[in-house]
């Protein structure tokens, strides 16, 4: 009688593992994680140590990616900078997902005028060019890493809110949700046991793609000098440090630029792979 059906996870894995770009993206994401985690072990020099004898040396055996205008090792600074990127990516996305789920869930579950008001608010937020809003806010508050993460988080939750709202509207019509209602379940149980757990898969995708976006925004802010403040190394600020000497020391800006490029690419590939594997019907 028992039918051999795959578990949802096995189904997901079967679809995911055949997707080479996604696997590559996953490997990039994983290696950035490892690098950030083991930064103290992996980095050959202290990222803040100034060495006046080695100012603006190109890639050599001692400094594989060269040094900057203060003689600091670019590789070491990039390795430590990966921590900033990851932290900003994850904390900012964490904040945006929490806000997005909360607003989306309230709108989708309650419906009616609350839904109307919240979705109007989402539309208003979406109509504001986020990056300029962030710039404006950062100009007013102290540009610390925590402020940056919070500002990115509170300006990027709208997509998640819409996703979650849509999921709630759709799942609210599912028979198993109706069944729970027919059993007399209260709102909390309906939301946390029956709707939310089944609403999460597009949110995961959105989160992974969101990390890429947050890393980009942080890098842009740091490039503009509004992000993580020196001497803390961040990929964006290393690029800035090299922009005045780019004609004689191209390596300062190039390598952190490539790091941003590949990390963002990695998260995007991974996110799209998750999308295809989790929601195969959306593929076309």
């Amino acid at each position: 009688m028992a039918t051999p059906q795959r578990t949802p996870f096995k189904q997901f894995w079967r679809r995911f593992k055949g997707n080479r770009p996604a696997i590559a993206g996953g490997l990039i994401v994983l290696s950035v994680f490892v690098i950030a985690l083991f930064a103290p072990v992996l980095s050959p020099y202290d990222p803040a140590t100034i060495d006046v004898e080695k100012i603006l040396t190109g890639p050599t055996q001692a400094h594989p990616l060269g040094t900057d205008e203060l003689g600091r090792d670019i590789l070491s600074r990039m390795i430590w900078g990966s921590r900033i990127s990851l932290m900003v990516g994850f904390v900012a996305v964490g904040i945006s997902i929490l806000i997005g789920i909360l607003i989306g869930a309230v709108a989708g579950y309650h419906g009616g005028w609350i839904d109307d008001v919240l979705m109007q608010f989402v539309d208003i937020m979406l109509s504001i060019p986020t990056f300029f809003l962030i710039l404006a806010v950062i100009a007013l508050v102290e540009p610390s890493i925590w402020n940056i993460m919070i500002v990115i988080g509170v300006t990027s939750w709208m997509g998640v809110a819409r996703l979650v709202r849509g999921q709630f509207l759709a799942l609210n019509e599912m028979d198993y949700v109706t069944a729970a209602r027919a059993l007399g379940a209260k709102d909390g149980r309906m939301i946390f046991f029956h709707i939310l757990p089944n609403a999460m898969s597009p949110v995961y995708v959105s989160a992974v793609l969101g990390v890429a976006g947050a890393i980009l925004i942080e890098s842009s802010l740091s490039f503009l000098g509004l992000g993580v403040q020196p001497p803390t190394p961040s990929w964006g600020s290393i690029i800035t440090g090299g922009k005045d000497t780019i004609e004689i020391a191209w390596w300062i800006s190039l390598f952190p630029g490539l790091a941003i490029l590949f990390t963002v690419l990695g998260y995007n590939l991974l996110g799209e792979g998750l999308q295809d594997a989790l929601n195969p019907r959306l593929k076309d």
Partner: protein
Amino acid sequence: MIEDAQDRGMDAGILARSDAARDEPAETALLSVKNLKKYFPVRDGLFGQKNLWVHAVDGVSFELQKGEILGLVGESGCGKSTTGRLILRLLDPTSGEIRFMNENILKADARRMRALRREMQIIFQDPYASLNPRMTIGATLEEPLIIHRIGAREERRARVRQLLEKVGLDPDGVNRYPHEFSGGQRQRIGVARALVLNPKLIVADEPVSSLDVSIQAQVINLLEDIQEEYALSMIFIAHDLNMVRHISDRVAVMYLGRIVESAPAPDLYRRPLHPYTEALLAAIPIADPKTKRKRMLLEGDLPSPVNLPPGCRFYSRCQKRIPDCLKEDPPLVQIHPGHWAACILAA
């Protein structure tokens, strides 16, 4: 939004048209439904105007006795599922009265309604959509007991295992997930869930329509056994008269939001009074190829439940129609004892 629609509906005087409600003593009935209506707004325009209504359920009245199985039959879109959901108050009706155990459940507040839900349950059509894919079978079946704070954990678990056995499944399946079961097995789990709280009323919303024919009989038999054992009352919704013939004590045929004929099952199949019932019966295949019978084909689709035609709502598809049929929408009247029909030709 539902309350909103309801208010506006009343204001617009849409409910002015009413039918003669049947007045019968309601004291013995477990469930008594009077003149139940549910209109859905169709146009919710830019400025929120709602001026068109789908008359999904348009004046349904019936009674259900203790231990009785009522077969509720009709084409898709006739309002039978909506009726089922209204009875369980999963939807709020536009107007009408639902008395369950002599209590008007439409007046019950949220707390009282939760208590009442212990006594009424639902079985769904699609066993693939009716179980939460992220909950084990054990958790799904234990949940009703947790919601209503019944028993200690061990007692609840024992009850779940006992129920799984009752519906013919391995009690050791409690730790498995819905996707590990077949459609028929899942439907048994759905039946078990409806039974956990020992309800008095079960609304079975096309419980076998999406199952293989070979499994259909198994599930119907299971429902019958359970109904007998627990003296349950059941509303068995189906789109095919053949399916409810065996199980129903009484059958009500719905057409465009209204019951057009209602009779004890043997009576209805032996001498249908409404042309629509006749047409449905004529559509049931007979195993003997030599049997000759008059063919009564239903032509066309249901008229739009938004703009109901004047007169009898079956007029456009009726093979026996006469000009008088257009004069008024015939009320459901008792033709023989217990046999009701809404057709001027039957009266």
